[in-house]
């Protein structure tokens, strides 16, 4: 049946416009708008003594200059702390423009509005800011010493401290279990900073018509930007609309909101009565948005002769940068998702999140999981090495078994709900990945190594998403959902769901995301949640519409709704193809009219004889129109899983690391569109390889980010990325109607762990830091021979 599209590799509906230059990204809008630019702090830590704008006043095209003192009280307030947590005892956020102290290079200090960006930057260059430099805090170790403070009122630079402990049998804690274990190991791991780095940076464009404000933002959450902007500007919510146009990648960074610019640009547009646009440049993105990943982990583990983990004790130092707008989601995710597919006898995890004078840390694809998986997988490899066992054997000894689902890990997850895995089959997945990479047949030799990494990813977090589905009298199906898209192909995947549920050709279905004019209630696109939460909401909304369509059609066909089916957009009596009515006509009948505008709609007017005169045209409890709205609010997260393996070759002279093969087996429940899922995995793996071998944020002792350009921050090109071989395992989620789990972040999560495992295998040197560069491997070799 042609309308059975769920699960098919349907080509993307987004592509024709994106391939012809007809996409509408943020900077493609507002051609007549004024441009904003910002004077940003050149110091990592300094007090702003004075700002002298005199030199900029004669710049041709200058319209306005604003400092913090120019902002109304409500606009100049500290930005919201988006996700409060009791353990975040000292949460701190920035002001839209620096009030008195700047805490990282790149913090905005002055906003300039001018005729175009060239003029705005000319003016920025002529504004003199007098800074009193303060000693910066750079790096986790300097932060924990607490000798210098990032925030005067945050002692020891500690923003948050959280301990979670899962006791073993007999209530024994992890530390006690480790003491009495047959074998113990202790080690330290280091993970560098990286960043989402979408190729389109952030951007905001605002229009004010004297009553209503329209804001376009390159964001991962338009509904929440809307609420934050309305609150900051003191506007009634219905007078603010926010639209995410085509967005050139997000990968986490664009979930943060409201950015200073998302408050300032709309405010200036209202103040000046002019359209204003700000488009972030690449250096701004490096020094003014957000980074992730940086952690130091201290691990102690106790285990038995089979490699079974009896106790695991992990202490994490998490670098939060200068501010904590997104709360402590990243270290919470690290702490909980560290467990992966395993069930240690007991587990204790403690993290301390510290402030440094660097760019703030908020989720980047994987959102703390790559660090947790690195920790657990390094632990598994070290146990295997210590016991002289095969690395996959030790993992298998620790797996949760398929008959143990739902499996309660006994912790609290990032959504505040219990960490209970819904479904999975880890032994089968291990068998598949070993077969795909040829684990058992692999012949090890110096300079050639094989590695493995396993993960479980909580996806599809709540609280909810919604879907609205409307069938109009032309037979078209209009689907909308509030969350946004940044390349995941939602217009296609959601259309596949709607076409399948409603029995209509996909060509008739159109999907709108991220536009608060179409759907006002939503959370956003992050945590591999869009397909799970919006996908199910849209399916439920479609089912409501389908039920209504069958009810109306049954009336018109004088049939029982139970005997009706919909195919190719036509409702028909099963087994009697001649008794049929197209959905377009059903849509007409669903909306009793006084006024017709074509032949079809004339059928719904008052003298057409289609309505019973003894009943109200719209029956009690009914609404006009063939449309429906529903929400999906998951009880808790679903848990996708995956295992990756790689074969690497290391150069004996240059220590260059080359990935010869890379294999992925993953389970994201039922697949909506396998082509899109594979694309997500390929992209995630490439970002993971960037994080494993190339990408790092290099701060000097003064807090200057010395590699803030694409020349020096090494994102992989095609030349660095191997062919990725993939295998799929489907264990449907029992938690949602469609049985799906999320896939967006999957690819990136275990890559550092896999590469470390493989390099260690090739070299016989313990790999405890990521990323690893040729020069670092060279140094490790030298240290070994010394």
């Amino acid at each position, binding site marked *: 049946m042609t309308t059975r599209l769920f699960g098919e590799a349907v080509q993307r509906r987004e592509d024709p416009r994106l391939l012809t230059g007809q996409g509408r990204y943020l900077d493609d809008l507002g051609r007549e708008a004024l441009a904003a630019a910002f004077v940003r702090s050149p110091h990592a830590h300094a007090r702003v003594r004075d700002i002298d704008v005199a030199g900029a006043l004669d710049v041709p095209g200058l319209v306005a200059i604003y400092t913090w003192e120019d902002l109304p009280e409500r606009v100049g307030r500290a930005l919201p702390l988006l996700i409060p947590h009791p353990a975040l005892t000292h949460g701190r956020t920035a002001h839209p423009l620096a009030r008195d102290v700047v805490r990282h290079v790149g913090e905005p200090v002055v906003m300039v509005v001018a005729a175009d960006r060239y003029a705005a930057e000319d003016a920025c260059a002529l504004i003199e800011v007098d800074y009193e430099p303060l000693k910066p805090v750079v790096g986790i170790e300097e932060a924990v010493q607490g000798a210098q403070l990032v925030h005067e009122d945050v002692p020891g630079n500690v923003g948050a401290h959280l301990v979670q402990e899962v006791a073993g049998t007999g209530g024994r804690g992890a530390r006690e279990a480790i003491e009495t274990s047959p074998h113990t190991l202790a080690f330290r791991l280091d993970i560098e900073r990286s960043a989402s780095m979408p190729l389109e940076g952030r951007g905001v464009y605002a229009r004010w018509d004297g009553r209503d404000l329209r804001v376009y933002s390159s964001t991962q959450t338009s509904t929440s930007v809307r609420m934050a902007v309305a609150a900051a500007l003191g506007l009634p919510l219905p007078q603010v609309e926010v639209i995410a146009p085509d*967005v050139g990648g997000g990968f986490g960074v664009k979930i943060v909101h409201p950015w200073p610019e998302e408050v300032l640009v709309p405010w200036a547009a209202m103040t000046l009565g002019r359209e204003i646009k700000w488009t972030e440049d690449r250096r701004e993105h490096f020094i003014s948005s957000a980074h992730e990943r940086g952690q130091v982990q201290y691990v102690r583990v106790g285990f038995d002769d089979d490699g079974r983990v009896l106790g695991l004790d992990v202490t994490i130092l998490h670098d939060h940068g200068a501010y904590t707008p997104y709360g402590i989601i990243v270290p919470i995710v690290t702490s909980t998702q560290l467990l992966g597919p395993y069930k240690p006898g007991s587990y204790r995890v403690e993290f301390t999140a510290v402030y440094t004078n660097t760019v703030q840390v908020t989720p980047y694809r994987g959102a703390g999981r790559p660090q947790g998986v690195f920790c657990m997988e390094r632990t598994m490899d070290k146990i295997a090495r210590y016991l002289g066992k095969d690395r996959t054997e030790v993992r298998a000894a620790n797996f949760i078994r398929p008959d143990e689902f739902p499996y309660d890990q006994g912790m609290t997850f990032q959504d505040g709900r219990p960490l209970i895995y819904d479904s999975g089959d880890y032994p089968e997945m291990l068998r598949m990945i070993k077969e795909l990479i040829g684990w058992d047949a692999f012949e090890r030799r110096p300079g050639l190594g094989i590695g493995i990494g396993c993960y479980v990813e909580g996806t599809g977090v709540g609280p909810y998403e919604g879907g609205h589905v409307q069938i109009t009298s032309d037979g078209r199906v209009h689907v909308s959902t509030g969350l946004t898209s940044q390349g995941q192909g939602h217009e296609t995947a959601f259309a596949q769901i709607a076409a399948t549920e409603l029995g209509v050709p996909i060509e008739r279905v159109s999907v709108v995301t991220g536009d608060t004019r179409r759907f006002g209630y939503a959370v956003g696109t992050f945590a591999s949640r869009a397909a799970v939460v919006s996908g199910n909401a849209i399916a439920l909304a479609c089912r409501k519409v389908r039920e209504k369509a069958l009810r109306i059609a049954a009336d018109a066909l004088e049939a029982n709704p139970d005997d009706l089916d919909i195919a190719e957009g036509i409702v028909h009596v099963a087994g009697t193809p001649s008794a049929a009515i197209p959905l377009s006509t059903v849509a007409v009948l669903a909306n009793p009219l006084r006024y017709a505008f074509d032949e079809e709609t004339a059928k719904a007017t008052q003298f057409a004889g289609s309505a019973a005169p003894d009943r109200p045209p719209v029956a009690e409890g009914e609404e006009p129109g063939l449309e429906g709205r529903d929400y999906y609010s998951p009880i808790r997260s679903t848990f996708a899983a995956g295992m990756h393996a790689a074969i690497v070759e290391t150069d004996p002279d240059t220590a260059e690391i080359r990935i010869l093969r890379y294999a992925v087996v993953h389970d994201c429940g039922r697949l909506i569109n396998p082509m899109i899922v594979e694309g997500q995995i390929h992209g995630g793996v490439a970002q993971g390889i960037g994080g494993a071998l190339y990408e790092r944020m290099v701060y000097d002792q003064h807090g200057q980010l010395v590699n803030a350009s694409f020349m020096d921050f090494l994102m992989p090109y095609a030349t660095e990325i191997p062919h990725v071989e993939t295998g799929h395992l489907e264990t449907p989620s029992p938690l949602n109607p469609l049985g799906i789990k999320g896939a967006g972040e999957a690819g990136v999560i275990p890559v550092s762990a896999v590469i470390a495992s493989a390099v260690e295998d090739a070299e016989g040197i313990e790999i405890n830091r990521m990323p690893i560069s040729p020069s670092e491997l060279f140094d490790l070799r030298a240290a070994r021979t010394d």
Partner: protein
Amino acid sequence: MEHEITLVVNGTARRVRVPARRLLSDCLRHDLGLTGTHVGCEHGVCGCCTVLLDGRPVRSCLTFAVTVDGAGITTVEGLAGPDGGLSAVQRAFAECHGLQCGFCTPGFLCTVTALLRENPVPTDDEVTEGISGNLCRCTGYQNIVKAVHRAAELLAEES
């Protein structure tokens, strides 16, 4: 000081007044309204802004508009046929899922169009090398490489 220049963009002569420092990318996007050419780094590394200058791929963010006065420029908007039908390269990218967010795509399309003109049957290594000046953060390149080979096939079928 402004300069009046003529750019033959996608076959149409366009006269435009620009200051000497106006980047070709900004001129195309903001003066001529051809926003299909994207700007990802403004320092010539990412390749998003790649356009064809007299048939050869160049970084429009590293090119001053005044320096290409009189030249022929092809942007992503000019790759499809006069009837609006997608080019072989465009069709191959759709077929092979060679794009996700689409931001780097115009640069890749221009680069690959020139690559296949010069080398209609590239090897794997030649494809990798040929696209190694363009960054993509979404796809991991695998489907882009596949799309280049597919485009070569489609072009061979067409000729």
